[in-house]
């Protein structure tokens, strides 16, 4: 099989029932290029790539490789033609080692002792591309960035010349993203081609050689990198100018809503994930939690929302100590939760959209009369969420599993924000959202603050934290190493705190509150 030199998709159309996900889309790609694929949530990016990877079959249109038309009936056909895809949700087996996972996918591996041959190939690839992973580590021990490297290695080992990456950076820390870009650039130089999907315009501008933008299933345009800037890209995607500024009014801090004192929480493997954390959040305050992922933020959030037992310390909600936390008790006390693992926790994918709009609120009097659910008010609520959050669904009756990634996220956001919380716990609320939706959600969070809602905002995106927060705390190895008030936000300082290099001095410096409004 000769190497993939030129790929073309011509007039690809794909319908799901009445929804036209792809309307006569054409694009091309040559060896050594990094093509950015952009578009709003639900524009049809994932669908198009699933077609290229043989997961869906197009209703019409053709795929042409090196001048010859090909038909993919399954991913193995695509792999056979040198196309590999790295999905947003990794498909690795947790209880196996890196090498075992790779051997499993490696078709040239012998039946007996398959890891031997795969291992030799693996080490040659690792060196060539600087993809550092320990082949004997178990998948569950790896961070998201390392797991992604395993996926890339696996794909390369299968002989992929073209790599499709669907929103690869949404699960990565900024540092890990930089590492990924280095690898991608190196791969492109070696003659691989790459299709890169992302909602982060800066990333697209920094690594792509060409960009194709989709809107409502159609190609809006294809531009060379040199012809583009951030505003132009955003305008192509949304069809209008986007205001990147947010209005953040001064508002008074009200009484205390959440108080966390000496909190200790254990992680999945019994390690101490959260160690003696103290903080409190007031009405009308956005309290940020920064930190490289895996430093206890997720465990902290799960403890506060009742999903994880508390080992020591206290959590007090509006003056009431929660001795036996459970998700239902805590939600009844007015806490909304936008979970980090949205697919795992946030929805029941087989149930219709409207039923997912009241998950956790289904016992409220507005949605239920005695034993029965009140479907007319549930559907009214669902329609409202769909319109206000601009969720692209053909109807509120479709199962949630047919929604695009960003639209699922919007559903969760819409549901949790319209629950009327007094405390909103939000983990990475704008993951996977397009630029317009990101702006809208940030604006909504600021509106909640003005209404006197307390917000706990966990994010790795410092820009987002700087835009929204009144105070930012930094977690490192389970400790809250410092709390910085607005006005003292400093990229470098917070960056150092995140790596554990600045600790005690900042803590003292920043303990006081600034005088605000």
């Amino acid at each position, binding site marked *: 099989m000769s190497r993939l030199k030129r790929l073309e998709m011509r007039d690809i159309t794909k319908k799901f029932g009445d929804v036209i996900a792809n309307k006569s889309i054409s694009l091309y790609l040559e060896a050594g290029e990094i093509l950015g694929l952009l578009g709003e949530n639900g524009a049809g990016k994932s669908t198009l790539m699933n077609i290229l990877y043989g997961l869906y079959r197009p209703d019409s249109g053709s795929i042409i490789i090196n001048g010859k038309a090909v038909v993919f009936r399954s991913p193995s056909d695509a792999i056979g033609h040198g196309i590999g895809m790295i999905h947003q949700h990794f498909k690795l087996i947790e209880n196996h080692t890196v090498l075992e996972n790779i051997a499993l996918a490696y078709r040239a591996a012998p039946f007996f002792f398959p890891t031997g041959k795969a291992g030799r190939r693996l080490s040659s690839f690792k060196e060539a591309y600087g993809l550092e992973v320990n082949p004997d580590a178990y998948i569950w021990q790896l961070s998201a960035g390392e797991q992604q490297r395993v996926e890339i290695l696996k794909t390369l080992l299968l002989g992929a010349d073209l790599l499709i990456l669907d929103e690869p950076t949404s699960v990565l820390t900024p540092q890990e993203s930089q590492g990924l870009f280095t690898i991608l650039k190196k791969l492109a130089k070696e003659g691989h081609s790459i299709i890169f999907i992302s909602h982060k315009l800066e990333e697209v501008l920094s690594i792509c050689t060409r960009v194709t933008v989709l809107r409502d299933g159609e190609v809006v345009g294809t531009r060379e990198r040199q012809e583009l800037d951030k505003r132009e890209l955003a305008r192509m995607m949304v069809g209008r100018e986007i205001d990147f500024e947010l209005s953040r009014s001064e508002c008074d801090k009200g009484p205390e809503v959440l108080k966390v004192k000496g909190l200790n929480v254990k992680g999945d493997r019994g390690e101490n994930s959260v160690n003696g954390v103290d903080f409190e959040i007031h009405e009308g305050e956005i309290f940020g939690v920064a930190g490289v992922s895996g430093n206890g933020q997720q465990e902290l959030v799960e403890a506060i929302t009742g999903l994880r037992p508390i080992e020591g310390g206290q959590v007090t909600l509006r003056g009431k100590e929660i001795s036996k936390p459970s998700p*239902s008790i805590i939600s009844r006390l007015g806490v909304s939760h936008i979970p980090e693992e949205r697919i795992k926790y946030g929805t029941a994918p087989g149930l219709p959209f409207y039923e997912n709009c009241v998950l956790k609120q*289904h016992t409220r009097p507005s949605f239920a009369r005695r034993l029965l659910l009140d479907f007319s008010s549930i559907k009214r609520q669902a329609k409202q969420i769909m319109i206000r959050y601009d969720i692209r669904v053909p109807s509120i009756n479709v199962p949630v599993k047919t929604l695009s990634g960003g639209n699922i996220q919007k559903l969760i956001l819409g549901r949790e924000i319209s629950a009327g919380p007094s405390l909103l716990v939000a983990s990475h609320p704008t993951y996977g959202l397009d630029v317009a939706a990101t702006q809208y959600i940030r604006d909504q969070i600021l509106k909640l603050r003005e209404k006197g809602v307390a917000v706990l905002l966990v994010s790795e995106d410092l820009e987002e934290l700087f835009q929204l927060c009144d105070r930012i705390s930094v977690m490192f190895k389970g400790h809250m190493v410092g709390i910085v008030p607005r006005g003292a936000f400093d990229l470098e300082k917070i960056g150092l705190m995140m790596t554990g290099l600045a600790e005690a001095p900042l803590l003292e410096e920043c303990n006081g509150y600034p005088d605000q409004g």
Partner: protein
Amino acid sequence: MGIRIKVEPRISHPPILPLTILVISLSMGFLGIGVLFAFYGINPFAAIWKIFSGSFGSLYGLSETMTKAIPLILIGAGLTLVFRAKFWNIGAEGQLLLGAIFSGYVGLNLGSLIPSFFTVPVMFMAGFIGGALWALPTVILRTKFNVNEVISTLMLNYIAAEILNFLITGPWKGKTQMGFPYTDDLPHHATLTLIPGTRIHIVTLVVALLSALILYVLVYYTKFGYELRVTGDNPHAARYAGINFMKITMTMMTISGGLAGVAGVGELAGIHHHLSYPSSISSGYGYTAIIVAWLAKLNPLMAIFSGIFFAGILVGGDAIQISLGLPSATVQIFNGILLFSLIMGDYFLTHRVRVVVQA
């Protein structure tokens, strides 16, 4: 040139596929059964025709079919609930027997204490409680000690059967049964009225139909059914939404076990009138109902139709057994083949097979 067969996951499927697959898998099932007949030297078409004419083609056949549909609908409808929560209750057979034992005790011993008008309702209640009590420990074993419910429910079937064997040969052995291992017959007011000329015990039939309807409303229209469906669809989301898995499965198993117990009451008070060997009280309804729930696609209302369908196969199976001289295990083999093809069918809903010709 080489030809390979590849199986690969299906991401989406056209809306008519489920029905197509159902029809195909039932046809494949009957094809398999037909092949068996052919091996026996019997014309498969004639035999399959005989099954259905035996069960649906005459008034007598129909009445027998309805008689057997009663326990299948009761148990099948209950099982749709627990299967939805992905709790695999294989123990309906034992739960049925416990229902028969509990109601038998009431009918045999409490006759003098209860006004005769109330005997039957109390028996139904006792049967429900008996079945539910036999079901509940498995929920605790699963949620507190992580014991697989397939094992625990299955084991409890054997224990239930042994308890019944012990009772009918020991302490409850009837004095009027001339040494047979039966209990005494129930007094007349502890038996169920039949539709004249048939063995259909009306009360239980009505209870079965109503249960299926009520469970349908429960699943699709109540808070509780919503929680059940969320739990079945994504247990993590259920936990996030504050839904208590233990509470859900406890309630489901109470209903499922209880309805199996009620089926036991019907068999005892409607048909046999005394307790006897486990295999004659039940003839495997608890197992057949698993297929009933499956064919109903876990929809309680559909359990009515799939219950009648499988009752027809049981009756038709009996008919050809007699007229064609087939071994008595024939019906079980039918059911096995049908369940197998239904489950295979479900697999093709999520996977597709294709033949690849390589140059």
